[in-house]
Structure formats: structure tokens, C-alpha cells
């Protein structure tokens, strides 16, 4: 049979698949995206929000690299909030409630309009491979995909973005259905094909709470939570004026002792606690059963009631995901103030699915054993829409970089949350779905959501996803920031009466000696804006420039200390480990370290040191070996 030819095939059209396919097509590749259901492109089967603590950072980084998620949510949100505002700028995080249907439809239109991108509803059932290089010693290479209805498609790279569909099972109490999320068709044959290629798979589990009929919820018994005014958009390309629209409220309520008693009394009927589920669930997104069992000292847990969209009454019960049998769920939910008479539209359920065993991926998100096979999203063991999208973008870019014989895009841990995310997925044996958290980022003070554009736009431009126009604007912004910082350091104020009066009016200590405007910005009560009367020489600047100037000057000491830590970190990252290293040749390595290193094949000494089971002493053995090897090859 004649195979239709593509450059890149993306399997799955969730948040990872959409970014991967768009990136590939935008970089000029003939791209095919396969999905079980074209009506569920960029579907949000779990929570109805984009962003949140650390995930908001990911969305902004995706945007800076030329991804779609930020623009898509800016066009479809129902409510937007900057979280953690009372803390420092590094942990500010944007979170928006999405209109799920609008989000999905808008992404579908973007895909449809994308030149070079073909969308097809089909189940991929097999990966096609051939040998590259001399017979017997070359590595296996991907060459195409077969779909359930028979046709085969040729490609130089394939990106697996299969989400939670691989041999999925949904569990609700004793009831088990063999479907993907929300009753959608699951995939079985593809997992078989992966196993046949020697790819290791394991089972992960995640869950989602019930959806309720909003007309049966008594919102007057809950605490109303409104969005921010003004709204800050996710995308650096979105004009803030376009997102100042009417927002919908969310509501806060709490579980109580009665709720917890019902859960405890029925634990034996929970499939997780009764041992029916074999998959491992995430600690960071626990079911209500987990919370009650693991935190017996908490008298109540928060429950957020959030709209699913404007097209429906349905509300999402955030904080009460559960896999209890339906009758227990009903009783449990009805104990919560405001939900006493609430009607469940969709039950809470847990879903179990196939994902990769750790150690098979490179930092480019390619399966090391099969050239041209890239993976992104939940198949890599992550959880979350944003985590998936970030990987999809990087995998899409790297599939193209490989075809074009260019260096892969690898963002390191000091450059972005995306770097932290991928490095963790590549080097760690996560025993549960991996969720992004700010604490995972060692260099958090530098990796802020407000400077994602300054950190990553140039990389996006180098790859080819950022336009000339956009990078020029970015460069201008950077210049303005630097020039303004220098100017502020050079404008000196003496202890003149009008200066002292200004300080008094702003609740700030009087000047004892001359100070520069830059030094004055160290005082929390003073801002660039309110210093205007003392700074007649200034020129108006964009708000985004002022924000960076203030952060840079105000937190200069911390930023410098963190930069020193980064310098130390980079030294180890820059000590590359050659691809062809044979760990059985490295003298004196402990057995466990030898096994770990052989399995994960770290790309640098830094990465090697992050492998569990590799001690500092092992790392030094390796460094000594590499030094000797370099010396002898010289």
C-alpha cells in the first residue's frame, strides 16, 4: 500500500499534542495530528483552569518560546487571578478559569487554520520502524504509524502525546469501565506496539472530582471569590485591553467532621484503599479520601466550586476528587455547606493508564532507543495540562531540530521551569504523576513569571517560532530596562527640604546622606511611579519595563546571590558525559551507581549527580574517569 508521507506525526491532540503539532507545522514540517475525537481537541477532562502556582510560570514560558496555550486561555477565560500576591514576585502565579468548550473550540480552529497541519480522527495502533546505520549495529529508527482502519503514514519523527488513553480504565467504586477520560474511547493496540519495540511501560493513576448541576447548588452558603481587576494576560503578545471583560465568580466552601466520618466509615469500599487500583496516584493532587486518611488532624478541607463554562450549568468541585462508590459520593458531597441538595451530573472517578518507565528519555524528550520517537505529556509520567503543553512544545521543536540536523532545544534548570520539569522527568524515578511546583525550581528568584519573555524569547527566536518583530520588541524592552537602571543609579538626591517632605508624605525615613533613585527603590514603600515628583528628568516607560526595573533593583542582593548559585550549577552542567561512555569501563563505580548511570545515561555530570542512587563519591569517580579519558585522548 502506498503510504502518505509526512515529516512529523503527532499521536494525540490534547494539550501536549496541540503544541507539538503546531510547533512542527510552524517550523515548516508537513505534520499530521491523529486524535481519537476531533471534537475533543485540547479537551480539559479534569479541572477547568489553566495556570496556578508554578503552572502559570510554565504557560508564560510556553508563550515566550512561541507556544499557543497562553493565547488560547487569554481568549477563553471566565475568571483570572494572580495568586500569592502577598509574597515575592517569584511566586506570583497567574491562574485563569477556562470556559472548557470555548478553550477546546478555539484551539481546534487554530489547528485547522495552521498551514501544513493535517488533522485526522483515527486511532494509531502501531509504530513503524526500520534500522538505521550498518545492519546489526545501527539503532532502530521510527519511520511511520499505522492506524486502526489500516492505512500507514510515513514520517521522520513521531511524537507520542497519548495522555491517559493508553489501556485506560475508569474506576468509580466497584464499577470499572474500560474507557479513556469522560467515556471517550481508549487505546489498547498502541501500548502493545510500544512493548514490542522494547519500550517499558507502567501504570499511573489520577482522579477527578464530580461535576454538579449549578442550579442545585446553594451559592449563598459559600464564600464568593472574584477575579482580579485588571486582568493580566498570560501571553506576552496579548494586548491587556482585550482581556478586561466581565468575569464569573468561583465559590469557596469546606468539608467538615460529618464528611470525614462518612469517608472513614466507607474506606473499605474505596478501590484505592481496598487495593483494586494498581496504578500510583499523585500525592500533590490527593483524593478527598487521601486527605482524610493522611491528615487526620485537619478538621476541614477547602472545596472550590468553579464554573465549567458559559455553555453549561455544570460546576467543578475542586478539592474533592474521589473514587468512592456512587452512593458514598452522594452522601459525602451532601454534607458540604451549599451542596446539601446538589445533583451530581458526572461522578468523580479515578483513571488508570500506561506511561513510560523512567530512564528511557533524553533531555530532548526522545526515546533514546528509537531514533525519531519523541514523547510528551502524561505518557512521560507528568500530570497537568500545562506540564503536558510545555513538553509537547519542546518535543515538537526537537523533532524538527532532529530532522533539520540542528542541535536540540534543551532548557536547563536555571533557565526555566520547563527545564526543571523535563530534567526531573528525565532523571528521576517518580513514583507518581509529576506535578510542577515552585519548590522544584532551585533558582526560583530568577525564574519568575514576569520575566519569562526575557529568559526565553531569544531561544524561541533561534528555533524559529518567534517572529523578527517580536524578538526586536523584546530586545528593545531589555535595553530600556538596562538603560533605566543605569539612569536611576545616577540620579542622586540630597537631603533637600522638598525631598524630606516627600519622604515624610510617603511614610519613608528622611535621607541622612545623598541617595540615588535606585537606592530609594529598595524601600518597599517607594515605587517608580510615586517617585515621579523627585525625578523630573524621567521619560515615560511601558509598565512591563518599570516592573522589571523595580524587581531588579529591589531584590538585587537576592538575585545576585542566586546568580552565584547558578554559576556553580552550570559548571557541573557543562561537564558533558560523552554519548558513547561504557559504564562497565569506569573503574571503582559502585554497582548501584553503575546500574543507574547505564540506565539513565545522563548527559552531564550535573545530571548524573541528580540521579537517585548516585552519590557524590560516585560522581567524583566519574569526574576522575572523564578527566583521565580527556587527558589520554589529548
Amino acid at each position, binding site marked *: 500500500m502506498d503510504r502518505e508521507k509526512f515529516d512529523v506525526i503527532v499521536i494525540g491532540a490534547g494539550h501536549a499534542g496541540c503544541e507539538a503539532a503546531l510547533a512542527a507545522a510552524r517550523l515548516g514540517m508537513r505534520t499530521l495530528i491523529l486524535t481519537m475525537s476531533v471534537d475533543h481537541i485540547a479537551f480539559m477532562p479534569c479541572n477547568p483552569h489553566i495556570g496556578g502556582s*508554578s503552572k502559570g510560570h510554565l504557560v508564560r514560558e510556553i508563550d515566550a518560546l512561541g507556544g499557543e496555550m497562553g493565547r488560547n486561555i487569554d481568549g477563553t477565560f471566565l475568571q483570572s487571578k494572580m495568586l500569592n500576591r502577598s509574597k515575592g514576585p517569584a511566586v506570583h502565579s497567574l491562574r485563569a478559569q477556562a470556559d472548557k468548550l470555548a478553550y477546546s473550540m478555539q484551539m481546534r480552529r487554530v489547528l485547522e487554520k495552521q498551514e501544513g497541519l493535517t488533522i485526522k480522527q483515527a486511532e494509531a495502533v502501531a509504530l513503524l520502524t526500520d534500522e538505521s546505520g550498518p545492519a546489526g549495529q545501527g539503532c532502530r529508527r521510527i519511520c511511520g504509524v499505522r492506524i486502526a482502519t489500516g492505512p500507514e503514514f510515513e514520517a521522520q519523527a513521531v511524537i507520542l502525546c497519548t495522555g491517559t488513553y493508553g489501556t485506560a480504565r475508569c474506576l468509580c467504586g466497584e464499577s470499572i469501565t474500560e474507557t479513556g477520560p469522560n467515556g471517550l474511547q481508549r487505546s489498547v493496540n498502541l501500548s502493545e506496539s510500544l512493548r514490542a519495540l522494547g519500550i517499558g511501560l507502567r501504570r499511573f493513576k489520577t482522579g477527578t472530582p464530580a461535576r454538579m448541576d449549578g442550579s442545585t447548588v446553594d451559592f449563598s452558603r459559600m464564600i464568593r471569590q472574584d477575579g482580579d481587576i485588571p486582568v493580566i494576560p498570560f501571553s506576552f503578545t496579548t494586548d491587556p485591553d482585550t482581556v478586561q471583560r466581565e468575569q464569573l465568580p468561583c465559590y469557596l466552601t469546606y468539608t467538615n467532621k460529618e464528611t470525614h466520618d462518612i469517608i472513614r466509615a466507607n474506606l473499605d469500599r474505596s478501590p484505592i484503599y481496598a487495593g483494586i487500583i494498581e496504578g500510583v496516584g499523585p500525592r500533590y493532587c490527593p483524593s478527598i479520601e487521601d486527605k482524610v486518611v493522611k491528615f487526620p488532624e485537619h478538621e476541614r478541607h*477547602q472545596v472550590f466550586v468553579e464554573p465549567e463554562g458559559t455553555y453549561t450549568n455544570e460546576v467543578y468541585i475542586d478539592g474533592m476528587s474521589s473514587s468512592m462508590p456512587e452512593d458514598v459520593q452522594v452522601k459525602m458531597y451532601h454534607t458540604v455547606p451549599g451542596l446539601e441538595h446538589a445533583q451530581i451530573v458526572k461522578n468523580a472517578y479515578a483513571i488508570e493508564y500506561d506511561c513510560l518507565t523512567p530512564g528511557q528519555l533524553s533531555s530532548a524528550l526522545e526515546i533514546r532507543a528509537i531514533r525519531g520517537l519523541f514523547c510528551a505529556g502524561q505518557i512521560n509520567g507528568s500530570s497537568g495540562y500545562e506540564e503536558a503543553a510545555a513538553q509537547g512544545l519542546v518535543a515538537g521543536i526537537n523533532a524538527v531540530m532532529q530532522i533539520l540536523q540542528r542541535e536540540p532545544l534543551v532548557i536547563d534548570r536555571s533557565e526555566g521551569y520547563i527545564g526543571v520539569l523535563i530534567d526531573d522527568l528525565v532523571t528521576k524515578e517518580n513514583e507518581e504523576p509529576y506535578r510542577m511546583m*515552585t519548590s522544584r525550581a*532551585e533558582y526560583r528568584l530568577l525564574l519568575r513569571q514576569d520575566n519569562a519573555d526575557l529568559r526565553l524569547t531569544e531561544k524561541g527566536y533561534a528555533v524559529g517560532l518567534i517572529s523578527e518583530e517580536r524578538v526586536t520588541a523584546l530586545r528593545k524592552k531589555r535595553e530600556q530596562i538596562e538603560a533605566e537602571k543605569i539612569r536611576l543609579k545616577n540620579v542622586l538626591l540630597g537631603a533637600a527640604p522638598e525631598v524630606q517632605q516627600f519622604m515624610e508624605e510617603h511614610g519613608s525615613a528622611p535621607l541622612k546622606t545623598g541617595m540615588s533613585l535606585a537606592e530609594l527603590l529598595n524601600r518597599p514603600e517607594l515605587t517608580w511611579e510615586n517617585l515621579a515628583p523627585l525625578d523630573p528628568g524621567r521619560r515615560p516607560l511601558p509598565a512591563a519595563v518599570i516592573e522589571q526595573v523595580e524587581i531588579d533593583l529591589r531584590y538585587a542582593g537576592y538575585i545576585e546571590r542566586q546568580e552565584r548559585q547558578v554559576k*556553580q550549577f552550570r559548571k557541573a552542567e557543562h561537564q558533558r558525559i560523552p554519548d558513547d561512555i561504557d559504564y562497565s569501563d569506569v573503574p571503582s563505580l559502585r554497582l548501584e551507581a553503575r546500574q543507574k548511570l547505564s540506565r539513565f545515561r545522563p548527559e552531564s555530570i550535573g545530571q548524573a549527580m541528580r540521579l537517585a542512587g548516585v552519590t557524590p563519591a560516585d*560522581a567524583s569517580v566519574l569526574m576522575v574517569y572523564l*578527566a583521565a579519558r580527556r587527558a*589520554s585522548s589529548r
Partner: protein
Amino acid sequence: MVSPQSDGRQDTIAAIATAQAPAGIGIIRVSGTRAHDILNEVFRNARGECVVQSLSAGVLRHGYACDAGGLRLDEVMAVRMDRPHSYTGEDMAELQCHGGLFVLRRVLDAVLQAGARLAEPGEFTKRAFLNGRIDLTQAEAVMDVISAENDFALKNAGRQIDGALRSRIESLRQKLLHESAFIEAALDDPESYEDALNDYAPRLTETLRFVSADIEEMLRHAQEGILLREGVRCAIIGIPNAGKSSLLNLLAGTERAIVSQIPGTTRDTVEERVRVGSLTLRLIDTAGIGDGSGRELDPVEKIGMERARAALEDAELILFVVDVSGAIDREVIDLYRETDGKRRIVIANQIDRLPEQGRSVRDVAASLPVEFEGTDAVWISAKTGEGLSDLRLAIEKSLLQDDSWRGEDLLITHERHRLLLQEAQESLSALSATIGRGMSEDFYTVDLMGAYEALGRIIGAQTDDDLADEIFSKFCMGK
């Protein structure tokens, strides 16, 4: 840099492990993949048979060390140790010999003949470290034992081998990590942990105070610890012919330096290690510094003086020698001024000559130039040894303010450790300042982790790429 071969697994090393001095017993130690084969070649039982394969690990066996021709060199006890249950983590063997030094060296020759390579200084320890048998502080401590020059240094090194330093540092790191984890959890889940950070600052401050006090405790006597282990760079300074070399010889108890009446006899700096109480002095005799009192200085003498000035600059203690039997003129005073700001002891030398001049120490003391007023000079005769015990006491007193360090369980004896402890301390002060300024909790972690990592580098729990250099510098030195 280590050559590739010296770290290859095929490489088996051997050395005499006991002091190379006449003793009842001497041990030859062999380590590496061929250790057992080599033992098999040099060790025979009473019937001349090879028996190593039948030996149980860790059990002493009587027999003979033989050369390649089968000739018995010595009656020995042999023991084999199997990896990883050995000091280095490799296969090892030891031969306990009973002959003297000469025989011991012949047995070592036989071992080398059989395929071992002579170990570099500290190489067994290096392998132990590289094989993960000991951590960096323990390795450092072993090197300290090897090079210990006084009882104190030896005892402290022993404590460090036990891991006392490591466990003390570990417990501090645990505390810091705990706080960091708490903050992170609260930041990651702001909605459910909102209240958790209320009143957190005072609690954290309490922990910091504890950690900081413990670090301070360790730092308090670090200077002394380092002096005790490394020895004190001590320069003998004075104008030509003040009796500096005689003083060196007096302290060293040997005729190390050439002494003559001729000014400028000592042309170069001469170094001698000398025990003074608990201390080791690295005593540097220098050429006299001066204009030669009208005498033309030769070029070599000039270089000597430059070196003397460099030694002065570098020294942690200056023994400033003045010949009180002669005139204390401008030259002496100018040179004395050059030592201002340094830790110094004025040594009034050649008091043996005073009686013949009809003067007493008291007379001279009363007539010292005003520049020397208030200095506690030590009055000695380097020639007769009079005043030597006073001098020893004065040296100890000037370096070890008091005896309180003796009560310490654990002394910091490495400059590396001291600097890292200081770094940790600085991070903790920066953190306290952050708390004081009312910054939000997310700023705490930079310095919290800064302190954590600095402490980690002390015990090698934190590795950076400098470690390889660290290891090389550590293990390539020594005796």
C-alpha cells in the same frame, strides 16, 4: 592530574604501611584487582606451596615471603581481604613481616616484581574515598593522621575519622532542610497552607539562632585548630648578625643553620619544623635585613633580604631578634616598624654578653628605645640557652590565647572547613536580615539553601566540579 593508568582497575598498588623505622613488625599492604594473585606469588606455606586461594578472608596465615626464585625472604603472617569488605573497597592483601627494614624493602620489591605498582602517598585512602568507603572529611582526616606532627593533631584527626564532624554538620543540615521544606510546602499550596506561615518568622529565627550558635562554636577555635594541625609560619627577623640562626638552632635543637660571626652568613631563608608545646612551628630563618652599616651588599645578599621581607609578609608570627649587647640604632627601629601590625615577639638576645659589659637586663630594659616600650620582650641567650623556656611559653601564649580549645570535643583544623563554615554563617546572617526586613517567606530559601550547601560541601555531601581538583590537591600532597 592523575594519569589514566594509575586509576585503571588493572592497577594494583603496594606500599610499606608501617613507619619506615626499626620496629618489631612491618606491614606491606597491597590493593587492587591483582592483590590476591600477587599475594599468591610471594606467599608460601611451610611446605613451599601456594595457598592463597584456600585462605579465608580476614584470617591470618603463617608462612614465608619469597622472591621470584622461590627464595625465602622473611617469615610472615599473611591475610587477604575481599572487596568490597576492605579499607579501600578493593581486593587487598597484607604481609606482616618480622625482619628489619632491609628485609621489609626486599619483600616489597618482590611484591612489585609480581606486578604491583608502588603506591603514591595517600593512594590507599584515595581509593577508599573513590570507592565510597569513606567520605571527604574522613579522607582528609586520614591524611591528617598520616601527616600528624603532634599528639593533638593526631587525636583530633582520630575523632574526625569516626565521623564526629560529619554527624555534627549533618544534624545542622537536617534542621535547615526541614525549615526549607516547610516553607516550600506552604508556598506551593497557598490556598491550604495560608495560615501555616503566620508567626513562622519567630520560629525560624529560633532555629537559626541554634544553628548559628553551633557554627560559631565550631569556628571559635578554628584558627587555633588550623594552627595546631598545619603549623604556624613563623619568621625570625632581625638585622644582620642579631643571632637569628642561633635562635633557630636553639629552638630546633640541631645545628640546622650555619652560624658565624660574619654578618650576612644566612643568604637564603632556611625552614625548620619545630615543636613548641602543642604547636608545630614552621620556623623560617631569614637573611638579616639592613643596609650593612656601610658595608657594600653583594647581589646574593640583596636577594636574601628580599626573600626575608617576603617571609615577613607571609608569616603568622614574627620572632623579632634584637642584639641587646650592641647598640639599638635606627636600622633596628626601622626594621621593627616594618613588622607593625603583625603578631610578633621581641627577643632580646645575647644577654650572656651583658655581664662583661657591666650591664644587667634591667639596665638594658630601662634604656630600650621608645619604640619598644610596652612590648613584653623575652630575654634570652641563644648561645647558652638561657630564657628558652620563657620563649616557648611566650610563643604558645601569643598563638593560643588560652587553654579553652583543649576542652573542645572537635576542633576545626582545615582552612577549607573554616571558610565553608563562615560561608554558611554569612548565609544565615543574610537570612536573618531578610527576616528583619519583613521580606516574604519565598526570599528565605535562597540563603537557607546557601547555608545548607556550604555545610554540605564540608562533608562532601554536596559535590561540585571543584571536588575533583579538591581530591587531587588533597591526595597528591602528603608524605
